[in-house]
């Protein structure tokens, strides 16, 4: 499986700075190939491309801050620990819960650690996708399977549905639908 099936979602779920958007724009052919590798049609990618080109950069950044960062309680905080409903009840809705600790363990097994200057938590959506991309690139099947089955597949459906409902920018609605579809294809 090409690492792009995870490397690209990792980028799309990162803060949409100008550099970042330029990188996305250069990668649409790779995105279509990744969709094909997952056995999916390219219309999800095309929708993402069209909604990005129609969006204004500033507005997209504001939407990213509003949806995922705050101020106040963000509508859809992008951390696995907050979305997993399968652990002990007392851990529900708490940041840095058991899923985050397990993610760190997986990263370590891959020889990875979170960059200090990334200022992110280990179970952030973009970090998990990036780790999966690395696992696929290294052909570390055990860790790749664990990242999909024991992490992404357990929270992407609920998280993406919530993003699609909360998003005011078509780009994030398209990204949520695409990510849900790619996760489902990967988990098969």
């Amino acid at each position: 499986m090409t690492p792009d099936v995870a490397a690209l979602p990792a980028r799309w779920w990162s803060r949409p700075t100008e550099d970042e958007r330029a990188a996305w724009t250069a990668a649409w052919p790779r995105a279509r190939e990744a969709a094909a590798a997952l056995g999916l049609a390219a219309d999800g990618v095309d929708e993402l491309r069209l909604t990005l080109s129609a969006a204004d950069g500033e507005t997209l950044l504001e939407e990213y801050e509003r949806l995922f960062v705050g101020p106040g309680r963000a509508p859809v905080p992008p951390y696995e620990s907050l979305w997993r409903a399968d652990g002990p009840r007392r851990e529900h809705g708490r940041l840095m819960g058991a899923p985050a600790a397990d993610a760190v363990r997986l990263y370590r097994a891959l020889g990875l650690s979170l960059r200090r200057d990334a200022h992110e938590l280990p179970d952030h959506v973009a970090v998990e996708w990036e780790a999966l991309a690395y696992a696929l690139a290294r052909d570390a099947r055990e860790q790749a399977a664990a990242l999909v089955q024991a992490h992404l597949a357990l929270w992407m459906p609920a998280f993406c549905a919530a993003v699609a409902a909360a998003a005011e920018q078509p780009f994030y609605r398209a990204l949520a639908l695409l990510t849900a579809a790619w996760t489902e294809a990967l988990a098969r």
Partner: protein
Amino acid sequence: MGASAVLLCAGTGLAPPTVGGCPVAVVEDLCDRPGAAAAALRTLDATRVVLGLCDRRPSAELLGALRRAGAEPFGVEAVVLGGRGPAEAGLLLAGAAARLERLAPGERGRTALATGALSRRALLALGPALAQRPVAVIDEDACAGTARCGLCVEVCPEHAVAAPGPRPAVDASACTACGACVPRCPHGALRLAGAAAEQVEAQLEELLPGVAGIVFACAAAGADAPPGWALVELPALGLVGPGWLLQVRARGAAVRLAPCDGACCEGARGVEALAARVLEACGTPRPSGGRLRLREPLATADAALRLAPRDATAVVVDDAAPLGLVHLDPDRCTLCGACAAACPTDALQLGEEASATVLRHEPSACVGCGRCATVCPERALSVERGLDLARLRHGTMELGRAGRETCAACGADLPPLPMRRRVRELLPELAGTPLGLCAGCASRAAS
């Protein structure tokens, strides 16, 4: 340079007091307790470490812990000892220690990024254990410079070696450590970090007296050596020239390659096939002692000479050969010396002797780059890759010679006779002028 130490897992059941002069610490359950390994390394105050492990390669955690405890990048050599007797295990450990001892001080690779092309903004970073990837390194003192040589720039499949100035430079972010440039450098100036020729030479010198065979394995292949054989792991088999195989055979041991499926080992089969052809050409190998040399093209030339009987005359033509065969058409050569000027290794030399101008060729220095044939204005040269055992044995040979003459009128030095003939052919207005006069005297004589 840092001190070396040996850490042995208690599970191996071995406890030699020292290995190759290095202190030994036996650690309970070393394979699975990175923290204990790191503590032992700190106690021994070493920066280079040989790991003697039970039955599998070191985990990323173990390597990471050792790096954090002060081990140099490329300063950890792991030996899997499962099922080997004490004598054999001692040999393998001593080999690894010898290899570490020759590690260049301050050897560094490149810092690997986590993912693909978008990774410069990556959120995750590789831990210290894996952060250092091998990369091609140029020894500035040995490098002949791009003006004279620059073969590495032509050879690199990733275009990672460039010549921005008088010296070639490796773009570490583009280098995939395939090793292709290493055997192609005629000056021995290129190495892959952590796998320099002198390191592997030292390792083999330890191993060869005691093993039945050597397996040169790509680290990505995850290969094992059969009982009685030793595994020599390398970042890529691209750096293994045919001379490596022949040198081991010349010392009387068997040898084979364990390539991975990747691009770094693409040439391995060709190299193995060439070594087999050379061995066949040599007839029954005559193992001999002698110092091991792994720098191509000398490695191949030297091994072939040691293996071949004195009267061997076989010629092996093969594109995988690190050596070249130069053929000169004496009727066309004017001894102009353009070929010698273009030769990156001085295999071709134009000598001005007291009584003659001589063009010579040293087959053991020729890498078959073909530049001489490209620049020859008379198309007198052709080059192919391969080796000619009789020519190698003979050594430097004369390709062309012309006596030195002086102008019959003024006594000035004249160009070689074949060149004067050729110039007269090319310039019809010179027809009939005496060949024994210099250009000035000839034109005065004509007017």
